[in-house]
């Protein structure tokens, strides 16, 4: 008897919770009159670009009548949310590992990155953001490890996207003929100069603009976006830097329209919108003015050496084990060493 009452109470509670969840879901919808609704789950940075592209897509035959339900947040958090059951048709993350997590969970097809673009939908590079007038005269990677230069970079532990920056610094040494020991020495100096490791790329920008440090390691699109919205810092694209590649994928049980959307993202039209928002287009020959870029008419200067994760680090899976493993990774070890000083 007692048990039955408890079960009844539990069922009531569960019902209320489900009701609350449904209520939340319904109100989150944007109430479009389209026949199809697609759910986009992504990392926060490309929100403006995705919105602009969705508007363009709505004018095409394929995209007409599609309404959107979107959710943006930290890449890793968003990926874990989808793994835990957040509904999604299309996902757009900062790091490949966040899609791999969904492949492992059986939500995304194994061959998601088999296409010509290898699953990548947006690109950027690692850049050095400096204060107006560049008072410390920072022009290249070597300048940031000089004594007296304070570095701000997002925390490579808690922010997955911060790893691009650290690998950019490492890759700089290797690309110039340095050994792994040279690169370790460089990273040691890098962390000695680090004054703050904020939780995310956006937090790092906030910390930098409020006076922390002399140089912010950031992403080109983030720097362009901040400048376009009124920040008066400058940024430098080093001669050798790392190409940032953000993957997008369609879930296995997604609405068929989601695949059409993913295909559209790789068109010149969609990549032009990405470019306008500071991302390096995947398609060549796009000529567009980008407000916020150092030179808005030539927004994406080609660095002499552009390193890639696949070409120079053997892919994310290998790079994560080698550099970021909590027990055996190179980066946590260097961070511990420099933290003691």
């Amino acid at each position: 008897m007692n048990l039955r009452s408890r079960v009844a109470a539990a069922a009531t509670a569960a019902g209320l919770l489900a009701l609350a969840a449904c209520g939340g879901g319904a109100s989150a919808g944007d109430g479009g009159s389209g026949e199809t609704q697609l759910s986009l789950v992504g990392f926060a940075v490309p929100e403006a670009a995705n919105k602009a592209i969705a508007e363009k897509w709505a004018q095409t035959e394929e995209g007409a009548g599609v309404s959107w339900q979107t959710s943006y947040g930290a890449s890793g958090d968003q990926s874990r949310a989808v793994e835990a059951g957040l509904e999604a048709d299309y996902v757009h993350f900062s790091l490949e590992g966040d899609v791999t997590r969904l492949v492992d969970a059986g939500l995304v097809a194994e061959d998601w990155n088999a296409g010509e673009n290898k699953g990548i939908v947006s690109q950027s590079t690692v850049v050095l953001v400096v204060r107006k007038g560049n008072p410390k005269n920072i022009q290249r990677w070597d300048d940031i490890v000089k004594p007296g230069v304070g570095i701000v970079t997002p925390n490579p532990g808690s922010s997955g996207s911060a790893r691009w920056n650290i690998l950019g610094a490492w890759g700089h040494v290797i690309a110039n003929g340095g050994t792994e020991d040279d690169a370790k020495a460089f990273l040691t100096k890098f962390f000695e100069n680090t004054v703050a490791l904020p939780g995310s790329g956006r937090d790092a920008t906030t910390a930098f603009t409020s006076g922390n440090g002399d140089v912010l390691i950031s992403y080109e699109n983030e720097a362009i976006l901040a400048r376009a919205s009124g920040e008066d810092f400058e940024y430098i694209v080093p001669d050798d830097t790392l190409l940032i590649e953000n993957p997008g994928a369609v879930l296995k049980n997604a609405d068929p329209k989601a695949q059409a959307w993913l295909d559209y993202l790789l068109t010149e039209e969609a990549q032009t919108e990405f470019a306008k928002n500071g991302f390096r287009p995947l398609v060549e020959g796009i000529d567009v003015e980008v407000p916020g870029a150092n030179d808005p008419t030539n927004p994406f200067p080609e660095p002499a050496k552009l390193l890639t994760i696949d070409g120079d680090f053997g892919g994310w899976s290998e790079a994560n084990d080698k550099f970021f493993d909590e027990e055996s990774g190179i980066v946590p070890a260097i961070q511990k060493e420099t933290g003691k000083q």
Partner: protein
Amino acid sequence: MTSIQTALPGRSARVRRSPRVGALTGASGLGLGVALLWFSLLVLIPLAAVVATAVAGGWENFASALNNEQTMAAVRLTVTQSAVVTVVNVFMGTTIAWVLVRDRFWGKPVLDVVIDIPFALPTIVAGLVLLALYGYESPLGINVANTEKAVFLALAFVTLPFVVRTVQPVLEELERDVEEAAASLGASRLTTFRRVILPSLVPAIAAGAALSFARGISEYGSLVLLSGNLPLRTEVASVRVLTYIENGDAASAAAVATVMLAIALAVIVLLDIIQRRVARRD
């Protein structure tokens, strides 16, 4: 409704077996059931899940997470700063509560309301405000950014209301007659405070201190912007937990969380014991 009624005989049967427990009326039985269910859904089940995740990772994983130098440094920093902040709160919180209850001054109603702002402010907003006021571009000329002091400052900010709000109502209810009687019997003001007022306040202070400490060791939002998260120096335990989660190591994250839970529990029990001791001496 029927299920609730049918539950009653079961309860009374249990009561008969242990006659020392007072018999529950229908209404209070329902109240207890609702309270327990709500508490279980919100607290007991999630906590059990955290501990279960930590245990499922195995002792080896638990040990290696705790042997990690960076993690231990973060736990140590978090616990030390929370303890220091709690001690400061015990004194400052009691003083503020005293001033609010016993003194009359201009702007008192405003202060009384403003005390709760650290509760109301989203922590990340608190972090932004602290960064603007006590960071590199501090208009006050105080820069604690990226140091341990930043952790202290953020914790002091978010935990300020706890002791104030637990002590204040008790102080308001305190009979002045007793103090006057003590004074007429020749007790000095200090003796009156120590022997008459303080013992009545101790349970409230202890409760406020426990809340303050527990909030301190779990804080994240308000301090990450100002503290800089430097490993072994200014990184707190919750950042370590996030790092483990980002690395897909839920077991280690749960291990750190379990340790923090155990510490919080130990401190709460300790404060409870202190409070009982004081109450008995009285």
